[in-house]
């Protein structure tokens, strides 16, 4: 065991760093640095730049375009993207739908869907939660009834992140409501968002931002070839996907960037004639978050290393990455808001224009926005339930 980087790893890091410096468009970098809302074209533009370079899907197998990186290289890449302040890669296609299709999909489904995901030609979103099915996902009611070569879908999804940008949605739907075990009647469907009968309604969050939506399905016709795996086996697919989702919620690279920004800001922000960073009360809080992040970084690598050795998808204890990663993200946004003191008060909708300092004005809305992280993708309480049951056997 050696947690220092080798010469080859450092050379790889420098190559990535140099390339990002050359290829990250300045306008995108500025938007990310100022915590501005990124539009569909912003997100896809960056996706396509990486796809052209062959770096957009580090975890994919080579046959579908993956770069063949080992876990350390993948980790270094994520970290460098974090430092450079690149737009995020939208996970719904790349790290959620794609691994599912690679594992459960038919050859036709793989050929049809994987290349457009890779190239950034198609924007995906996720249709899991429903108004009555939050943490209790298996209670979902959106119905799909088989009629000849089609399913007819009726119902409603909620919290559909970036659904207003999406071309396609992968959905959990109920194909059988007569089964004894609720999980058995669920299927995994891929649905074209342009299909008649689909309506997207925005839900504006307390920071003023539009990222989540409600999606309504009114007699939506979906061809049966868009069923992934077997009818009634959607829960198996969903669980497989959730493991990957949780593996990505740690967001170590992005948190490292936030931490670096916060430190730089707190070193300049004066407090009673001294930099805020030297205030022991502030600094100790910041250091504890940094230490927790260092630990998470290594824990994350240990998970990837275990997956590499066992060739198994992530186990239930991957939930801890979600718990710790989101707690850290929230602490950082809270400390950043605290760091600007009274200047946190002026409110500026993320899309509006104002005379306020861009950096300070974005912090309080961001603090508000990040309260979502311990709620989404299975609330942190649900994650604890999962570890208690699956890992600890309680």
């Amino acid at each position, binding site marked *: 065991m050696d*947690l*220092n980087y080798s010469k080859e790893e450092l050379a790889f890091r420098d190559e990535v760093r140099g390339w990002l410096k050359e290829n990250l468009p300045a306008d995108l970098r500025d938007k990310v640095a100022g915590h501005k809302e990124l539009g569909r074209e912003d997100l896809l533009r960056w996706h396509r730049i990486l796809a052209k370079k062959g770096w957009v899907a580090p975890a994919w197998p080579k046959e579908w375009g993956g770069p063949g990186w080992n876990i350390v290289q993948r980790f270094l890449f994520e970290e460098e993207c974090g430092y450079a302040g690149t737009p995020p890669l939208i996970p719904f296609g790349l790290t959620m739908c794609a691994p599912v299709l690679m594992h459960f999909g038919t050859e036709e489904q793989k050929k049809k869907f994987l290349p457009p995901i890779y190239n950034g030609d198609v924007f995906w979103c996720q249709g899991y939660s429903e108004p009555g099915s939050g943490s209790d996902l298996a209670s979902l009611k959106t119905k799909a009834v088989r009629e000849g070569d089609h399913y007819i879908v009726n119902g409603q999804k909620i919290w559909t992140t970036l659904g207003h940008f999406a071309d396609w949605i992968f959905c959990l739907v109920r194909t059988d409501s007569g089964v004894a075990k609720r999980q058995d009647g669920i299927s995994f469907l891929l649905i074209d968002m342009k299909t008649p009968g689909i309506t997207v309604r925005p839900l504006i969050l307390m920071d003023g931002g539009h990222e989540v939506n409600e999606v309504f399905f009114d007699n939506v016709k979906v061809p049966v070839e868009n069923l992934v795996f077997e009818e009634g086996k959607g829960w198996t697919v969903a669980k497989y996907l959730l493991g990957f989702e949780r593996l990505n919620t740690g967001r170590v690279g992005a948190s490292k960037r936030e931490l670096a920004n916060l430190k730089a800001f707190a070193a300049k922000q004066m407090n009673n004639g001294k930099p805020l960073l030297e205030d022991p009360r502030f600094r100790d809080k910041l250091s504890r978050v940094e230490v927790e992040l260092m*630990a998470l970084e290594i*824990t994350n690598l240990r998970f990837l290393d275990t997956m590499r050795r066992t060739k198994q998808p992530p186990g239930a*204890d991957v939930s801890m990455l979600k718990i710790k990663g989101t707690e850290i993200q929230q602490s950082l946004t809270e400390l950043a808001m605290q760091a600007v003191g009274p200047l946190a008060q002026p409110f500026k909708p993320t899309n509006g224009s104002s005379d306020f300092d861009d950096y300070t004005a974005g912090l309080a809305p961001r603090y508000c926005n990040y309260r979502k992280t311990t709620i989404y993708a299975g609330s942190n309480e649900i994650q604890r339930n999962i570890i208690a049951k699956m*890992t*600890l056997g309680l």
Partner: protein
Amino acid sequence: MNFDQTEEQQLLGDSLRKFLARDYDFERRKKIVASATGWSEPVWATFAEMGLTSLPFATDLGGFGGGAVDMMGVMEAIGEAMVVEPYLPTVGLAGRLVERTGSEAQKKAMIPDVIAGRTRLAFAHIEREARYNAAQVATKAKKAGTGWTLHGEKCVALGAAAASHLVVSARTAGKPANAAGISLFLVEREAPGVVLKEYRTLDEQRAADVLLDGVKVGAGALLGDEGHGYDAIEEALDFATALLCSEAVGAMKSANDATLEYLKTRKQFGVPIGTFQALQHRMVDMFVALEQSRSMACLAASKADGATSQSDRMRSISAAKIRIADACRLVSQEAVQLHGGMGMTEELKVSHTFRRLTMIAQQFGDADHHLERFAALG
């Protein structure tokens, strides 16, 4: 960067764990703690036979030539069984100082005996006013002929009574808090003027306050260069802290295992108390704290063996100790709480693990001390 464990590393931890499971159960340990010396010579002899006392020492001295990473499994097993024999004080701390600062003659005189299990060493360093400041040394060494005379008082020297020799820090120049001017001396425990006040620690180990009342030592007692002992002290304390981090992981694992077992078997209101969500979530937080600590123990050991710079080493090891000190408090407190009244009693191992974890959190610097050092390094 890699997390691979060599076969040898795995074997070392596994064989010690097997030995401890067989010959060092909770009852056996209790007897050792209650004995006059508070440690067991036969157990120590077995450690030597297994090669544990040779691990970090150079091969030309008869050692295994290993580092902190090689010792992780061993330290974890020691933590799990809460071994009270002075392994860390001898092998991880005082032995390290002798090997790092001693002349060929000094090393040859001490290290092979340590490896063979014939002798033990202890580091007499902490002083009453020092808290965790390693430079706070008021004990004085005055030139006397070709040798020195030592005056001062040391406290909480772990394993001192079991040791044949003490490594003593003393000031040959400068003021009490200066890093410069500190020298290291190898002092026979039986030397005239060395007075030990031995006691049991809260966590059932043995330590002593050491009075140095005009102790005369020869020229051959000085370890390293006069006045330049500080860097070696800091390095040895970092090395020992890295080992302690792995020991903490073992002790926390023991507390977690016992608590989980208790949640599954203890019934109230007609059901195992582990079915209550309020308790499940607390158990999960203990589990997560342990895994985060394990990650930091990996970092500490790796950086003790080879860091990109001195400040990289210090900063990483401080980060590990902060995280692990916090985890020690959480895990120990929750383990007792979830055991209810029984967790308070001497009868259950968990109350002993509580005490060990409580002391580990403060050994070689508590979280506040390491937060200060961590922040100062950027």
